[in-house]
């Protein structure tokens, strides 16, 4: 490692198969929904194990940058930044099975030192621990049951469709939702 580069790394075990993690990490159109400090994300091109995507940071920076992505199915997602001013040159998500139904993700962020390294917003960008926590939240939208196993998790709302209608539990209280009649629609 040279004096002009930095590496930050963090790892977390997730209660899901590697394939779900891989699907989330290679869906570049949805990164804005979950990765901190990403305002917009868009897949530009995809061919085999190579993809090109564009990210935009939120205001005031609103910096756009393009990444070149190399995938190894269910094992690794590697980004290299192309252009842009962000002080990051490479991001590597490594996925490894960790027992039945569990996977470990290691996130390594290779930074390059430039003037933007001193801007607080850029310094927070792609903080590995924060990103992995955000990934956990994204996974729980696919597998809601795993969100409850988190020590900080709390079930606030649960919806299920039954013979009675749509049953809604809000903080331990049960509500039955029934369709409104057509004439009451606006």
């Amino acid at each position: 490692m040279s004096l002009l580069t930095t590496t930050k790394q963090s790892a977390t075990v997730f209660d899901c198969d590697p394939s779900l993690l891989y699907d989330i990490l290679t869906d570049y159109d949805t990164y804005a929904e979950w990765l901190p400090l990403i305002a917009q994300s868009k897949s530009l091109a995809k061919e085999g194990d190579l993809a090109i995507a564009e990210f935009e940071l939120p205001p005031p920076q609103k910096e756009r940058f393009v990444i070149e992505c190399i995938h190894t199915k269910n094992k690794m997602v590697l980004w290299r930044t192309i252009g842009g001013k962000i002080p990051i040159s490479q991001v590597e998500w490594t996925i490894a099975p960790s027992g039945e139904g569990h996977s470990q993700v290691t996130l390594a962020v290779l930074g390059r030192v430039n003037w933007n390294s001193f801007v607080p917003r850029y310094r927070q960008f792609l903080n590995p621990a924060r990103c992995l926590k955000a990934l956990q939240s994204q996974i729980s939208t696919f597998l809601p049951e795993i969100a409850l196993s988190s020590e900080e998790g709390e079930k606030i709302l649960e919806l299920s469709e039954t013979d009675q209608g749509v049953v809604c539990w809000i903080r331990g209280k049960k509500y039955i939702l029934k369709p409104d009649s057509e004439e009451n629609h606006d």
Partner: protein
Amino acid sequence: MIKAVIHVDAPRHQVYALLTDYPSYREWVPGCEQCNVVSRSGNSSDTQIVISSMKRIELGVRFEGQPGQSLNFRMVNGRDLKAYAGTYRLMDATDGKGTVVIAELEIDVGMMIPKFMVDRMTRKMMDDTGIAMRKYMQSARIPTAAA
């Protein structure tokens, strides 16, 4: 190696046709005064190029293409630069409307100029070329047959 991504609103075969239409470079590549094809063999072409940028540069460049996929180029003669090489890789845009060109360029000026300055100039040159390519594709009638 400096990389740039250029999104062009044209199908891949048209973008490839433009990139391999070497004489047309002087119409759209910023600073290109001349680009003559000296010899051609299959998908390989030797050209003589004159570029006026911070100084006038004359060099022989060999282009080797994989139709519709990529175009490699490298300097084969010239005194003004020590090395000049790169690639254009073409990919279909995910939105189905155009082509994404991944351009790579390495320049060695062979002088005591700091690398970061050369890289900065190279990046600007690539960005300008990307803008010019998009503009030219929009305005010109591009031959559809791949060279």
